[in-house]
């Protein structure tokens, strides 16, 4: 970006102290630092929102002239309650975990590890949808259709899960996963093909397909094939036990094989992008389409492949949710997870390991947010605001640079217009 000039070796202003120079060295051009500062900014903004929503604190601010201490104290109390609930809900109490492990009591360990298990459960689909969308990112495609691909993946896994009871688990479970991936792939294939054949922008087509998928789901949940027998509610039949992802930390914790498969997928996507010919072509395409074309890359085919693969991976997010946790689909299944995958991919800067970390963070946010809502009576959606602010700052490092007066390279990824 010429807006955001990279000045290699630009010295700090003359006359600045040694301390400032050292600080400047650590603060310049560092992705981790930007993300950290963005995180801090998001928490500060979140704190302001918490105060605004706390009647106690706001009442104290009415008399800030007479009792400034009370206003600050109440505000601090509101913020501390919220953020500590967020922490306890996502990680748990560190002391509690140590004590439980020391006691050696299985039930106690389980309950102390419950928050961590919930974090990993929420992380799994976020990581998968983030990985799929990041893969498309790297090929220069903006897959905004995660929601639809996730729904299709969940539908496919559910269908295979209840349609073939009696299969042994080593056949049934892989089959259900593969069908889920195939359904998601189909939903990614459409925008890929349209882009390759007609130039239709994938942002629009994949976004529209989200709503087609949502309506398709609502419709299918009224059909005899999908709907659970009494047929009063829009809920699908349940997935057979032989197609469910086994729990990996005892029956009382929901954490299941899905997180392991997600981690394997993360390594797989990283390998694909960094080590394989296909990944190299994707990255070429993402870096410079014209150069890729001149170098003999079949652009149309890569578009279709990248979108199909992305759809398959996001479809797996839905499959893991169904097979690992819910064992059925309902109307509006998946909520905003397919959408959150976009923010996960942006926060991870399209790097599979970065995506994994971002998904872990957002998974912790999701699990902690539920506890915060329950214990501190603060709506879960605060977490959504924090995530959005965090990603907004990461997508525009220039803003962070201005706020904190540091030098930061790059201006984030730019996709360009509808016609490209």
């Amino acid at each position, binding site marked *: 970006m010429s807006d955001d000039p990279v000045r290699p070796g630009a010295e700090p202003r003359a006359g600045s102290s040694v301390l400032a120079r050292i600080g400047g060295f650590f603060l310049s051009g560092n992705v981790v630092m930007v993300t950290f500062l963005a995180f801090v900014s998001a928490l500060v903004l979140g704190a302001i929102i918490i105060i*605004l929503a706390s009647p106690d604190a706001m009442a104290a601010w009415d008399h800030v002239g007479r009792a400034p201490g009370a206003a600050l104290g109440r505000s601090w109390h509101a913020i501390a309650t919220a953020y500590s609930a967020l922490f306890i809900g996502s990680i748990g109490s560190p002391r509690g975990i140590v004590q439980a492990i020391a006691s050696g009591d299985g039930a106690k360990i389980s309950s102390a590890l419950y928050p961590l298990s919930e974090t990993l459960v929420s992380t799994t689909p976020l990581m998968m949808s983030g990985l799929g969308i990041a893969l498309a990112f790297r090929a220069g495609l903006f897959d905004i259709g995660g929601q639809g691909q996730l729904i299709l993946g969940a539908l496919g896994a559910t269908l295979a899960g209840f349609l073939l009871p009696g299969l042994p688990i080593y056949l049934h479970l892989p089959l259900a996963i593969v069908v889920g991936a195939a359904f998601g792939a189909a939903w990614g294939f459409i925008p890929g093909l349209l882009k390759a054949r007609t130039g239709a922008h994938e942002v629009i087509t994949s976004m529209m397909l989200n709503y087609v998928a949502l309506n398709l789901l609502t419709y299918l949940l009224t059909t005899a094939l999908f709907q659970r027998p009494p047929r009063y509610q829009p809920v699908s039949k349940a997935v057979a036990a032989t197609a469910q992802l086994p729990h990996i930390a005892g029956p009382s914790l929901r954490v299941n094989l899905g997180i392991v498969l997600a981690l394997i997928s993360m390594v797989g996507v990283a390998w694909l992008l960094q080590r394989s010919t296909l990944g190299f072509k994707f990255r070429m395409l993402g870096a410079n389409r014209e150069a890729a074309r001149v170098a003999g890359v079949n652009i149309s085919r890569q578009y279709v492949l990248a979108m199909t693969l992305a759809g398959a991976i996001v479809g797996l997010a839905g499959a893991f949710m169904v097979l690992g946790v819910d064992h059925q689909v309902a109307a509006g299944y998946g909520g905003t997870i397919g959408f959150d995958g976009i923010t996960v991919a942006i926060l991870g800067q399209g790097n599979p390991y970065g995506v994994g970390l971002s998904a872990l963070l957002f998974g912790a946010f999701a699990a902690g947010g539920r506890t915060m809502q329950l214990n501190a009576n603060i709506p879960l959606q605060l977490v959504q605001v924090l995530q959005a602010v965090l990603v*907004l700052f990461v997508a525009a490092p220039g803003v962070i640079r201005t706020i904190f007066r540091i030098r930061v390279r790059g201006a984030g990824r730019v996709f360009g217009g509808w016609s490209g």
Partner: protein
Amino acid sequence: MSDSPSTALGGRELRKDLAAVRRRGLAIALWVLAALDLLVFARTVSPGSTTVFELNAPPALPVPALHLPVFATLLVLGIVCALLGVVQYLWKGNRQTYLLLGIGLALTGVAFLAWAGKGETVDIEGLLMTSLIEAVPLTLGALSGLLCERSGVINIAIEGQFLIAAFVGAVVGSATGNLWLGLLCGALSGGLVGLLLAVFTITYGADQIIVGVVIDAFALGLTTFFLLSLLVPNQMTLNSPAVFGPIPIPLLDRIPVIGPLLFNQNIMVYLAIIILVIVQVALFQTRWGLRVRAVGEHPRAAETVGIKVQRVRYRNVILGGIVAGIGGASFTIGSTGQFAHNMTAGLGYIALAAMIFGRWRPLGALGAALLFGFFDALQFTLSALNAPIPSDFLSMFPYLATIIAVAGLVGRVVPPAADGQPYARE
């Protein structure tokens, strides 16, 4: 983007090819509609059945209800549709492709209603009324997107602007008891979101699509958060605004059928029409509009003749936010009053689709918004008739139509050339 998709795919032949494919594709689409009328609908109709189309007229001039024999109606409409397809196939120089398709779709809509409502009464006035009301936020949202994109900034944040303005409109309207103040604040809050988009994308060069998507997530989270933490405990004071009542326009509102439809609506409908006319005229008849379009098509050239590109973009994005804000306010103080969780339910994205479907033109956007609104309204009518078609498929229509439109199968859709391109002075 300097390289169009067709250069990447083998040049001019393909573009020519596509034009022919589009012409034929449209003809085939019309024939499919005709086949739907004749083969699917007409075959399942018993010979003697009729459908009553009721047109509720104002008391001054009652209009009798129309009794249509279903089979004959379907036959006529199907044949007309098929003939339109022939015309389209043979008429090579036709540039009004959308017009023919629009007529075909409308005829099929009537045929469909006649078929679905056989032996019953269809409330046409109600159907049209609902379509029009649904079309108001869609039109305003599409105009917002259009104002931004004509200057080269993609506005995916329409959904977020809708939500925040709906929220602010409801809260201000409820707390102050003044709906006009609510509308004003709603519009300004939309403008504020526009400013946010402008700062991040124009000044800091962040990707417009990413920022738009994230702003939508931000708006959804923020409005739901404050709804649950502030509005729900104080429902009576903060979330119970009145709504704008209908303003009859003297004399005109007494015209049969269209009188009550067009001239006895609330301020939102009139505002949408006024803004539409202003945008249409300003964009294509004034110097301001020429400058905006120049910035959207070729910012470098615009800069060399002395137009301040960044300033034009800032102005348009904020203006677009204000227009979307008015559309957002119509969700609460224009119709239902209360703010509810995620009450725009993706209509901001449909508005974006309406803008694209309307080919970045105000009147086109209006047409698309009416069409989408009609299909939305059709669901209510059909569920009242117990029609044998699941409403979910009707809900898919705007989305499928948009996909077909951007795929260029029925007419060309060309965005402004510099749409989505950040611009920096050299």
